[in-house]
């Protein structure tokens, strides 16, 4: 970028993957020569406002998060393992979610059916025809 090479270019043909902020933090806040080890008299203290984005390993939060993730995982695996059942379960789930609305609609439908002198058969055939 800013330095003219003193000799030929590097042997790396492909462009490197871009470093993200986390990569940079891991690298230049943690590694490299520490000036304090070499210079004392003329060292100037300057305020640094850097955020440490690193995750603390093996914390309570980590454990609870792993437990949660593995619990979720199991359910999704059952679904993948039994595709036939999944369709039914999902349909069931969907019915549960919108239960309130369907019940309300069902009441209306029943009233309508009663008024027409129909029964549940009528409802079913109507649905199939949709």
């Amino acid at each position, binding site marked *: 970028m800013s*330095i003219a090479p003193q000799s030929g270019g590097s042997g790396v043909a492909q462009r490197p993957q871009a470093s993200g902020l986390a990569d940079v933090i891991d690298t230049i806040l943690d590694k490299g020569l520490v*000036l304090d080890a070499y210079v004392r008299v003329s060292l100037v203290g300057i305020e640094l406002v850097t955020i440490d984005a690193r995750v603390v390993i093996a914390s309570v939060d980590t454990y609870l998060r792993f437990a949660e993730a593995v619990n979720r995982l199991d359910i999704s695996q059952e679904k993948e393992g039994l595709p036939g059942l999944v369709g039914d379960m999902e349909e069931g789930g969907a019915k549960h979610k919108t239960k309130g609305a369907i019940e309300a609609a069902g009441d209306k439908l029943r009233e309508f059916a009663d008024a027409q002198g129909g029964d549940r058969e009528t409802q079913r055939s109507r649905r199939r025809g949709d």
Partner: protein
Amino acid sequence: MTAQMEDQRAEGGRTGVYVYGILPGDIKVESGAEGVGDPPGEIRVVRHRDLAALVSDVDLDRPLGRAEDLFAHEELLDATAADVPVLPLRFGAVLTNDDAVADELLGAHYDEFTSALKQLEGHAEYVVQGRYVEDVILSEVLSEQPEAAQLNEAIRGMDPDASRDERMQLGEIINNAIEAKREADTQAFGDALSGQVTASVVRPPSHELGAVYVALLVETGKAEKLRQAVDRLAEQWQDRIELRFLGPLAAYDFVGAAAPADATAGD
């Protein structure tokens, strides 16, 4: 430059000299390269005999550490390292003036820096970082650790508040299992690449799903072979570990107090 700094002092602003890295003296800096600070200071060179330091003036009354500052520091050094050996300084190194850089830093440690630069000649650092694919690695743990599978089952029927101890226990088992996998995979990684690198340093994991995190000091001529070897590993681990390959970087991981002496020990 000293005159410029004195002018700034006269105006009441306190400035220092921010130091990025140390490199051989036979380099030129393109004009207009920008460093840390807001507005960014212009990159320039302070020399002592055949050593040089990349520096820029910095306002001492303003804290440093914005994302822009961090990127400026690293990008300058990484771009430099692609072409010439450089000893990168940790972020935040400021000295009083150019004379201090020349005498107290470069002059006082001339032999040490010269020999460290000699060892880095023709090398660059690469970093490989791998992260486990969560679902895949958790499935592995469940199938390998009956205790975890049992706990997982038990927790499912329990009230979340009542199951805290069990969840902690389950999480700890998973965490320990991942730590063991991390160690084994890092070992396998090192074995697979040992022929391509001059030295390597295992970095502490930066994420709970971290699989491998290794800094590699590599001869410039071997960089392409290394990349191919990493590609093969990435393919082999495709389903369970996502690999990233960063570099060339300045040799941050190989310039610690004792590191220059170790830097070529692996060959």
